[in-house]
């Protein structure tokens, strides 16, 4: 699936870019975070605590066409082709 990523502030500093289009074989936000951690070491930890819960300091927002934007608090949420994920 294709996921459009937007990186802001600390996430931008880690990724070295404002945004990118990822083409991944994943299912959930957890999978995405695992991928991001492998690509940009440290990024996963900005989002997810060791127990798997969301870090309270940072935000991941999911935008999907035709649906309302939502904060991703539970990373078991499924992702779909064409999703936009903004990391602040």
């Amino acid at each position, binding site marked *: 699936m294709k996921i459009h990523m*937007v990186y*802001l*502030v*600390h996430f*931008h500093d880690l990724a070295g870019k*404002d945004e990118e289009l990822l083409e991944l074989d994943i299912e959930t936000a957890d999978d995405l975070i695992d991928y991001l951690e492998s690509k940009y070491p440290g990024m996963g930890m900005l989002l997810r605590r060791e127990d798997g819960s969301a870090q*309270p*300091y*940072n*935000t991941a*927002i999911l*935008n999907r066409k*035709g*649906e*309302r*934007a939502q904060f991703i608090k539970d990373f078991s949420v499924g992702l779909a082709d064409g999703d936009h994920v*903004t990391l*602040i």
Partner: protein
Amino acid sequence: MGSKKVKAIAVRGTKEIPIFDPDAFMDVYHDFWKELSPNDCVDIFHRPWGVAGDSLATDYIKTMGGLAVKNDQGFDEEVPSFDIGSATIRKLLVRPMSCFSCGLPSCSQLIAYGDTVLKMHTGSIIGLGSNFGITDINAIMELHKIWTELGLDVSVSPTISWTIEAYQRGLITKDDTDGLELKWGDPQIILKLVHKLVFKEGQFGELMAEGLKALTEKYGGEEFALHVKGLDITLVPSRSMYGMGLAYAVNDQGADHCRIYPPYPPNADAVPEHIELPFDVEKAAIRDIPDEKAKLIKWSFDSRAVLNCLTTCVFLSRGKLFSDFSYFARALTAATGTEYTHDELMKIGEKICNLERSYNVLNGNASRKDDTLPKRYLNEPFKSGGSIGMVVPLDRMLDDYYKARNWDMATGRPTQEKLLELGLDFVVEDFKNRGVWS
């Protein structure tokens, strides 16, 4: 002050301000700093804001689908996307800027523009950008520079954007605008309109200078006039966050978001165990349901009233400081020698809000019919974007709010019972003498 041509009042004293207990005061001062440390402060905005500054709010608003586009008509997928946000501002950054001794390293940002610097913030990006259909950062910066030189607040934006929409709808014509053809996305037209407004050029300029209420009384178009109680909306989205919509509607000043800032509940992880909030934090945080918003907004008004009295910046009420006012109580106690507690401060805040409402009641500007929103926010849902389908369910939230306040459901006026509970006996007498409850 504007009508008297007064720009500012500077005062210089020669005496010291005595602190009752300087050691205790410094202890709590250090505790404030500790709570605001980026590593300790549990708040989704504090840490990134300390790096990227206020322009970050544009990113949130855009992502959540609430960006004001062309008089806040909502997302417009037919025009180039509005890409300006904190990333743009960071590329232009000269240095971050905060007030003296502030705990936030970067509140706003000084950015380079030609041979000068501009203090940029979200209000300018949205108010002078997307709300006019302008997507070029250089145009926004030019408008911002001129706006600042003219001493204008960005909340003039809805007056200008209303004018353009009214022209597009045929409510006003070139005859009214002295031949000026109004369209979106043209900074030169914005400048000409601003000039008319500031210097009251011609009849139309004079009317613009009186604001949206005066304009709509003459031309109609009230349904897309973005003001509450005569004060132009500051463009923090209310359709995207129902609590914000309620706050705008019931604010006795009119549409000023700063009165309840931050416009969301505290992070549940940051609320100390000994603090019992009068609302369900989890539900209050869900932006597109009306549940718990009334209790949240009542609490927000009451608690921010305290901070305003303490002349404390509401931007720093974060982490534990968002909900636990014992820090402020300790500071006030140490400064004055009079004992204060968290509960007492919250009661004072409630008293302030009831006094404000009572003043407005006596001046004829506080009733259920005044506690409303532009019809756009009540009847025009977003057709696309992150807030698709959202309009403010105001009636339900208004009922909940008056109930939470113990104000009369039909009129929105404080009840005698509430005023007496708060020790505002003199207001009760005043109301009786003037027949408020008759």
